[in-house]
Protein backbone atom coordinates (compact mmCIF):
# COMPACT_ATOMS: atom_id res chain seq x y z
CA UNK A 1 0.00 0.00 0.00
CA UNK A 2 1.06 3.59 -0.51
CA UNK A 3 1.75 5.35 2.74
CA UNK A 4 2.66 8.84 3.83
CA UNK A 5 4.70 9.20 6.99
CA UNK A 6 5.10 12.41 8.91
CA UNK A 7 6.76 13.01 12.23
CA UNK A 8 3.95 12.76 14.75
CA UNK A 9 5.89 14.64 17.40
CA UNK A 10 5.12 18.33 17.64
CA UNK A 11 7.75 20.74 16.38
CA UNK A 12 8.43 23.71 18.66
CA UNK A 13 10.49 26.59 17.32
CA UNK A 14 11.19 30.19 18.14
CA UNK A 15 9.62 33.02 16.17
CA UNK A 16 11.80 34.13 13.27
CA UNK A 17 13.44 30.72 12.80
CA UNK A 18 12.89 28.36 9.87
CA UNK A 19 10.58 25.41 10.46
CA UNK A 20 11.31 22.26 8.50
CA UNK A 21 8.76 19.46 8.31
CA UNK A 22 9.39 16.06 6.75
CA UNK A 23 7.14 13.84 4.64
CA UNK A 24 8.26 10.37 3.58
CA UNK A 25 6.35 8.15 1.17
CA UNK A 26 6.49 4.48 0.28
CA UNK A 27 6.43 2.59 -3.00
CA UNK A 28 6.58 4.47 -6.28
CA UNK A 29 6.89 8.23 -6.47
CA UNK A 30 3.56 10.00 -6.87
CA UNK A 31 3.07 12.38 -9.77
CA UNK A 32 2.80 15.16 -7.21
CA UNK A 33 2.55 15.84 -3.51
CA UNK A 34 0.31 18.39 -1.85
CA UNK A 35 0.75 20.19 1.46
CA UNK A 36 -2.17 21.41 3.55
CA UNK A 37 -2.52 23.40 6.75
CA UNK A 38 -5.14 22.47 9.33
CA UNK A 39 -6.20 24.55 12.31
CA UNK A 40 -8.15 23.01 15.22
CA UNK A 41 -11.81 22.49 14.41
CA UNK A 42 -11.35 23.34 10.75
CA UNK A 43 -10.87 21.53 7.47
CA UNK A 44 -7.46 21.41 5.78
CA UNK A 45 -6.45 24.35 3.60
CA UNK A 46 -4.31 23.81 0.51
CA UNK A 47 -0.86 25.42 0.55
CA UNK A 48 1.36 24.04 -2.20
CA UNK A 49 1.63 21.34 -4.83
CA UNK A 50 4.96 20.03 -6.09
CA UNK A 51 5.29 17.73 -9.08
CA UNK A 52 7.61 14.77 -9.39
CA UNK A 53 9.83 16.58 -11.92
CA UNK A 54 10.15 19.69 -9.77
CA UNK A 55 12.94 19.80 -7.24
CA UNK A 56 11.65 22.84 -5.41
CA UNK A 57 8.60 25.13 -5.28
CA UNK A 58 8.26 28.43 -3.41
CA UNK A 59 5.35 30.58 -2.34
CA UNK A 60 6.07 33.62 -0.20
CA UNK A 61 7.69 32.27 3.01
CA UNK A 62 6.97 28.65 2.08
CA UNK A 63 9.30 26.28 0.25
CA UNK A 64 8.72 22.65 -0.65
CA UNK A 65 11.22 20.16 -2.03
CA UNK A 66 10.68 16.76 -3.64
CA UNK A 67 13.47 14.17 -3.60
CA UNK A 68 12.47 11.03 -5.49
CA UNK A 69 15.70 9.27 -4.50
CA UNK A 70 15.05 9.67 -0.79
CA UNK A 71 11.26 9.37 -1.32
CA UNK A 72 10.89 12.50 0.71
CA UNK A 73 9.42 15.98 0.64
CA UNK A 74 10.55 18.77 2.94
CA UNK A 75 8.32 21.71 3.82
CA UNK A 76 10.00 24.88 5.06
CA UNK A 77 8.51 28.01 6.61
CA UNK A 78 11.04 30.81 6.82
CA UNK A 79 10.81 33.70 9.28
CA UNK A 80 8.16 31.76 11.19
CA UNK A 81 5.45 33.59 13.12
CA UNK A 82 3.14 32.50 15.94
CA UNK A 83 0.29 32.63 13.37
CA UNK A 84 2.02 29.77 11.52
CA UNK A 85 1.20 27.46 14.44
CA UNK A 86 -1.01 24.70 13.06
CA UNK A 87 -0.89 21.10 11.88
CA UNK A 88 0.66 20.58 8.47
CA UNK A 89 -0.44 17.65 6.35
CA UNK A 90 1.33 16.03 3.43
CA UNK A 91 -0.75 14.13 0.85
CA UNK A 92 -0.22 12.04 -2.26
CA UNK A 93 -2.78 11.03 -4.86
CA UNK A 94 -3.83 7.39 -4.71
CA UNK A 95 -5.93 5.77 -7.37
CA UNK A 96 -7.92 8.15 -9.52
CA UNK A 97 -8.06 11.25 -7.34
CA UNK A 98 -8.24 10.21 -3.73
CA UNK A 99 -5.64 11.77 -1.48
CA UNK A 100 -3.76 9.71 1.05
CA UNK A 101 -2.74 11.95 3.92
CA UNK A 102 -0.06 11.62 6.52
CA UNK A 103 -1.03 12.03 10.16
CA UNK A 104 0.33 15.56 10.13
CA UNK A 105 2.94 17.40 12.13
CA UNK A 106 1.90 20.00 14.66
CA UNK A 107 4.00 23.14 14.54
CA UNK A 108 4.13 25.50 17.51
CA UNK A 109 5.92 28.82 16.99
CA UNK A 110 6.83 30.50 20.26
CA UNK A 111 6.86 34.32 20.38
Amino acid at each position, binding site marked *: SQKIEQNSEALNIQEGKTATLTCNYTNYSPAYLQWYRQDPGR*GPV*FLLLIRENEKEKRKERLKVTFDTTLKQSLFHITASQPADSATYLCARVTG*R*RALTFGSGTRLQVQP
Partner: protein
Amino acid sequence: GAGVSQTPSNKVTEKGKYVELRCDPISGHTALYWYRQSLGQGPEFLIYFQGTGAADDSGLPNDRFFAVRPEGSVSTLKIQRTERGDSAVYLCASSQGAVDNEQFFGPGTRLTVL
Protein backbone atom coordinates in the same frame (compact mmCIF):
# COMPACT_ATOMS: atom_id res chain seq x y z
CA GLY B 1 -21.57 30.08 -1.46
CA ALA B 2 -18.02 31.16 -0.93
CA GLY B 3 -16.78 27.83 0.33
CA VAL B 4 -17.74 24.23 1.04
CA SER B 5 -20.41 23.98 3.70
CA GLN B 6 -21.40 20.96 5.75
CA THR B 7 -24.40 20.33 7.94
CA PRO B 8 -24.84 19.61 10.71
CA SER B 9 -21.65 20.79 12.34
CA ASN B 10 -22.19 18.33 15.17
CA LYS B 11 -24.26 15.17 15.34
CA VAL B 12 -24.75 12.98 18.39
CA THR B 13 -26.56 9.72 17.87
CA GLU B 14 -27.05 6.39 19.56
CA LYS B 15 -25.52 3.13 18.47
CA GLY B 16 -27.65 1.47 15.83
CA LYS B 17 -29.26 4.64 14.51
CA TYR B 18 -29.16 5.99 10.96
CA VAL B 19 -27.51 9.34 10.15
CA GLU B 20 -27.21 11.59 7.12
CA LEU B 21 -24.46 14.16 6.65
CA ARG B 22 -24.80 16.84 4.00
CA CYS B 23 -22.20 18.62 1.89
CA ASP B 24 -22.66 21.69 -0.31
CA PRO B 25 -19.61 22.04 -2.56
CA ILE B 26 -18.29 25.18 -4.19
CA SER B 27 -20.51 26.10 -7.13
CA GLY B 28 -19.13 24.75 -10.39
CA HIS B 29 -16.84 22.16 -8.83
CA THR B 30 -17.41 18.86 -10.57
CA ALA B 31 -15.42 16.69 -8.18
CA LEU B 32 -16.59 16.01 -4.63
CA TYR B 33 -14.84 13.93 -1.96
CA TRP B 34 -15.70 12.55 1.45
CA TYR B 35 -13.03 11.86 4.06
CA ARG B 36 -13.18 11.07 7.74
CA GLN B 37 -10.66 12.12 10.33
CA SER B 38 -10.03 10.64 13.74
CA LEU B 39 -8.23 12.54 16.48
CA GLY B 40 -4.52 12.85 15.80
CA GLN B 41 -4.79 11.37 12.32
CA GLY B 42 -4.91 12.78 8.83
CA PRO B 43 -8.08 12.62 6.74
CA GLU B 44 -8.90 9.15 5.43
CA PHE B 45 -10.47 8.90 1.98
CA LEU B 46 -13.97 7.44 1.73
CA ILE B 47 -15.47 8.20 -1.70
CA TYR B 48 -15.07 10.50 -4.69
CA PHE B 49 -17.73 11.74 -7.10
CA GLN B 50 -17.21 13.10 -10.58
CA GLY B 51 -20.50 14.72 -11.44
CA THR B 52 -23.35 12.52 -10.26
CA GLY B 53 -21.48 9.23 -10.29
CA ALA B 54 -19.23 7.69 -7.67
CA ALA B 55 -15.90 7.39 -9.50
CA ASP B 56 -14.08 5.75 -6.61
CA ASP B 57 -15.74 4.32 -3.51
CA SER B 58 -12.80 2.15 -2.46
CA GLY B 59 -12.48 3.91 0.89
CA LEU B 60 -15.94 3.12 2.20
CA PRO B 61 -15.27 0.80 5.16
CA ASN B 62 -18.33 -1.44 4.71
CA ASP B 63 -21.82 -1.55 3.29
CA ARG B 64 -23.25 0.51 6.15
CA PHE B 65 -21.78 3.55 4.42
CA PHE B 66 -23.35 4.99 1.31
CA ALA B 67 -23.18 8.36 -0.44
CA VAL B 68 -25.17 10.04 -3.18
CA ARG B 69 -24.90 13.12 -5.34
CA PRO B 70 -28.07 12.98 -7.43
CA GLU B 71 -27.81 16.31 -9.24
CA GLY B 72 -24.06 16.67 -9.36
CA SER B 73 -23.94 19.29 -6.64
CA VAL B 74 -25.03 18.57 -3.05
CA SER B 75 -23.96 15.23 -1.63
CA THR B 76 -25.23 13.20 1.31
CA LEU B 77 -23.22 10.63 3.22
CA LYS B 78 -25.46 8.04 4.82
CA ILE B 79 -24.45 5.72 7.63
CA GLN B 80 -26.73 2.90 8.70
CA ARG B 81 -26.68 1.05 12.02
CA THR B 82 -24.05 3.38 13.44
CA GLU B 83 -21.33 1.96 15.65
CA ARG B 84 -19.18 3.68 18.25
CA GLY B 85 -16.19 3.24 15.95
CA ASP B 86 -17.90 5.50 13.39
CA SER B 87 -17.29 8.47 15.69
CA ALA B 88 -15.04 10.91 13.83
CA VAL B 89 -15.06 14.20 11.92
CA TYR B 90 -16.45 13.70 8.44
CA LEU B 91 -14.92 16.10 5.94
CA CYS B 92 -16.20 16.99 2.52
CA ALA B 93 -14.04 18.58 -0.19
CA SER B 94 -14.60 19.73 -3.75
CA SER B 95 -12.34 20.61 -6.65
CA GLN B 96 -12.45 21.68 -10.26
CA GLY B 97 -11.85 19.42 -13.21
CA ALA B 98 -8.09 18.82 -13.45
CA VAL B 99 -6.84 15.80 -11.56
CA ASP B 100 -4.17 17.68 -9.62
CA ASN B 101 -6.34 20.60 -8.59
CA GLU B 102 -6.33 21.53 -4.95
CA GLN B 103 -9.18 20.28 -2.87
CA PHE B 104 -11.26 22.80 -0.91
CA PHE B 105 -12.42 21.36 2.38
CA GLY B 106 -15.47 22.14 4.44
CA PRO B 107 -15.35 22.54 8.23
CA GLY B 108 -16.53 18.98 8.79
CA THR B 109 -19.30 17.29 10.72
CA ARG B 110 -18.32 15.88 14.09
CA LEU B 111 -20.20 12.62 14.55
CA THR B 112 -20.42 11.09 18.00
CA VAL B 113 -22.01 7.67 18.40
CA LEU B 114 -22.92 6.91 22.01
